[in-house]
């Protein structure tokens, strides 16, 4: 069976999930107004239409691309849509709108980026754009602060999280830079301490630290630096680089954890969210997140049955549609449902890594590996934060969290992975031995 047919069949579970999810939410609400108003159900049909369009577009433009990446992304997005619908109809409507725009951006990326070498040519421009994007939230007038971190900019009614796009820019730059210079980096058996070798490493470490201080967000900083280390390792195979980089990052993070109040606060809450002094205040979010998960248990409370607020109006699960969406999922679907979601992410990562392995040496391999790594780290940072593996920070859960920037950026990420995969697999198919 050809790749595209497998992709189409892969969309069947997605359609089942959407149908089952929306029906279940509707039944739980079971208010007659909803039942008489079939408009709500059209989101599901509309979403499936988008998926079918995406599939046809890939069939036309990237016929040899990996058959599982798109259905997996659609699965995650469908899941996100149902969860958003379950929280509030408005969220689902807006989320669905963002999917359409995301899909358009996805198609545009595939149409205009037929040759990935274009990205290599403009790598410094892309890097500069990435840095500007990251620092935008600190620009007075458009920057917006939330929970002490500078993550978003506001232009009129539209809120935008530049870090989501900056992550793509940074990976493109690093993949291209390391693809060129990796030979230099690994020269000789013992890495000598020279500025030429370690200069870039130090610059990027510095950038991550600046990020930590300027946008005050440990999560994004960890995401960028983790992506950098992953790429460095893939490019050079030197664990010593990774170890040194990791040590520098944790040293820096510890230093700022002691000196910058905001970061320090996040650490104390992480260590003991139930402390009487913080549990109703700064620690409220993480403490409630854990309570919500405990409430879920093995199988969850069932879809649409989680509690958000007390009768007194007090919010009992803050940011349920963004930061704490994973806690909500655990609450409603339990350990099993949440593990299922994580497995879906892991499969996506596996396909991304597969694309990287099939790709030719150099830029495209590093690009695919880097994008996939950043995607995986992002999932780890937010889910790890919600489950208290690491301090809680405000990055989004790809394709599931509410938020336009996240969806758009992840559709571009998906497009880039599919482009790499299409080229790689076509080359493989052309060579004797074929595709394994």
């Amino acid at each position, binding site marked *: 069976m050809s790749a595209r047919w497998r992709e189409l069949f892969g969309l069947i579970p997605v359609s089942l999930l959407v149908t089952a999810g929306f029906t279940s939410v509707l039944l739980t609400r079971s208010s007659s107004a909803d039942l008489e108003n079939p408009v709500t159900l059209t989101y599901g049909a509309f979403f499936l239409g988008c998926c079918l369009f995406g599939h046809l577009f890939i069939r036309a433009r990237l016929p040899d691309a990996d058959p599982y990446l798109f259905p997996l992304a659609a699965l995650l997005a469908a899941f996100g849509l149902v969860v958003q619908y379950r929280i509030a109809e408005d969220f689902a409507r807006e989320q669905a709108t963002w999917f359409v725009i995301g899909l358009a951006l996805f198609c545009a990326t595939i149409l205009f980026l037929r040759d990935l070498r274009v990205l290599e040519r403009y790598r410094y421009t892309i890097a500069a754009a990435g840095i500007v994007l990251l620092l935008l939230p600190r620009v007075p007038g458009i920057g917006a602060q939330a929970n002490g971190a500078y993550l978003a900019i506001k232009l009129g009614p539209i809120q935008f999280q530049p870090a989501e796009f900056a992550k793509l820019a940074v990976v493109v730059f690093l993949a291209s830079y390391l693809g060129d210079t990796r030979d230099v980096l690994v020269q000789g058996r013992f890495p000598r301490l020279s500025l030429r070798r370690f200069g870039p490493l130090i610059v990027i470490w510095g950038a991550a630290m600046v990020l930590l201080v300027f946008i005050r967000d440990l999560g994004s900083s960890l995401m960028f630096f983790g992506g950098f280390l992953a790429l460095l*390792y893939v490019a050079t195979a030197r664990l010593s680089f990774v170890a040194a980089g990791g040590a520098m990052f944790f040293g820096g993070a510890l230093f700022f954890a002691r000196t910058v109040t905001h970061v320090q606060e996040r650490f104390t809450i992480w260590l003991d969210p139930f402390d009487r002094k913080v549990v109703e205040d700064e620690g409220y979010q993480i403490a409630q997140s854990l309570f919500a998960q405990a409430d879920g*248990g093995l199988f969850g409370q069932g879809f649409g049955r989680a509690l958000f607020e007390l009768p007194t109006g007090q919010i009992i699960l803050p940011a349920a549609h963004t930061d704490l969406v994973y806690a909500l999922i655990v609450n409603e679907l339990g350990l099993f449902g949440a593990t299922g979601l994580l497995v879906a992410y892991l499969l996506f990562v596996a396909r991304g890594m597969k694309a990287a392995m099939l790709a030719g040496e150099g830029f495209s391999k590093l690009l695919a590996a880097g994008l996939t790594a950043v995607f995986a780290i992002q999932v780890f940072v937010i889910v790890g934060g919600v489950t208290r*593996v690491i301090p809680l920070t405000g990055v989004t859960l790809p394709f599931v969290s509410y938020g336009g920037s996240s969806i758009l950026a992840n559709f571009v990420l998906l497009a880039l992975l599919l482009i790499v995969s299409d080229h790689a697999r076509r080359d493989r198919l052309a060579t004797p031995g074929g595709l394994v």
Partner: protein
Amino acid sequence: MNRQVKHLFGLVVVLFALLVAFTSNWTVFTAQSLEDNSANRRPLLEQQLVPRGLIRARDGTVLAESDGSGRGERRRYKRRYPQGTLFSHAVGYSFLELGRAGIEQSRNDELTGAADSVESFIDELLGRTAEGDDLLTALDPKGQRAAIQALGGQRGSIVAIEPETGRIRVMVSVPAFDPNEIPDRFRELNADEDSPLFNRATQGRYPPGSTMKVVTAAAALDSGRFTPGSVVDGASNKRIGGVPLQNFGNQDYGPISLTEALTNSVNTVWGQVAQRLGKEEYYDYMERFGFNVEPPMDYPQNQLTPSGVYGPRGRLLDEDDPVDIGRVAIGQERLQVTPLQMATVAATVANEGSRMEPRLGERVVARDGRLEERVRTAEAAQVMSRDAANQLKAMMAQVVKEGSGTQAALEGVPVAGKTGTAEVDGGASNQAWFIGFAPLDDPRMAVAVTVERTSGQGGTVAAPIAKKVLQALLSGRRG
């Protein structure tokens, strides 16, 4: 480079496994403690949607009920306590804003119907609204009311136990609070200097004074090394633990029997007895009586306090610590006990040496009247032999007949007991005690009474209160 990509994927797998591990931890392994966390309002809120079962006294009097308000999906239930201050500590409270206490907490699963999950699952399938079971307690409103009246506003506590079963008939702690006022006045009550929210019966740590001599006598008789007729020198100023010990009023008794020594509460005799038994053996008997651990009672852990010798920073001292056992034996040293513990001591003697676990609950009954569960009674330990217990009963009867406890005597019903008076505030006031049981031959009720900061003694203050409580409880049984 493909090898590195594989390694990278391996790392991602490990990281994701970590996420699953942590999620399992919160959802399964530590879920219970998270649910019990006081900052977690979820369980309380969910339970607001379900009418809690009634809590009743043993005669059927309703002690706690749920009032519903609102309709359909918005229907919420709130707790109401028709008896007001009468059962405050025993019953406790359950409110969304402030959590739970007392039986409301310890029997929460039954009261919310969460105890039988299969049934609630079936209810859910059939679309029936879940509801909690009713709890019938062992509490006796008549005895409870008599106890509060007898205390007459003095701070203190009274516990009455049915010796054969361990069922708690009376549990009084004064000052009390009105559970209905908890939502509005919690802060105020919590800050009150008289600590009305504190359950003196199970949490109050008081010096037991001479009531401890009952434990000492039990150890002496059961060890086989003493009989009620054994003669010990009752001179005052005997050296106990290297320091001279005085009798009450510095009185010299000369050589006297243990029966006389209990009747007259002779300190030096019981100090010597304990020293001869030795610290290890004495501690063994204390533990058989239930000292040094939280009582095995159907009541919240955080409202139960062990009795024992308390060292610095609230640490319970064991037999390896430097403890003057001769003074522990007469209720001095750093010995601190709860009224519940001393009632258990009296009940154990009454029940021929068999110590029963204290129980507040008696039966769990479904809303439709079906019996769901009979609360199991259980023997905690056989503390002493029947013979030793019967000898001790006779000795304690002497105390009420002609010793320090005469004011506890009932007309026509022989009572056994022991008084206690411990000096507190550097001798400025007394902690008065009486523990005992009645009727002597077939004990149906054991009681412990303690009064804080009184100028009187156990025999003059606590014994008359015990008399009134026993009277109310025993007459109730006949009626």
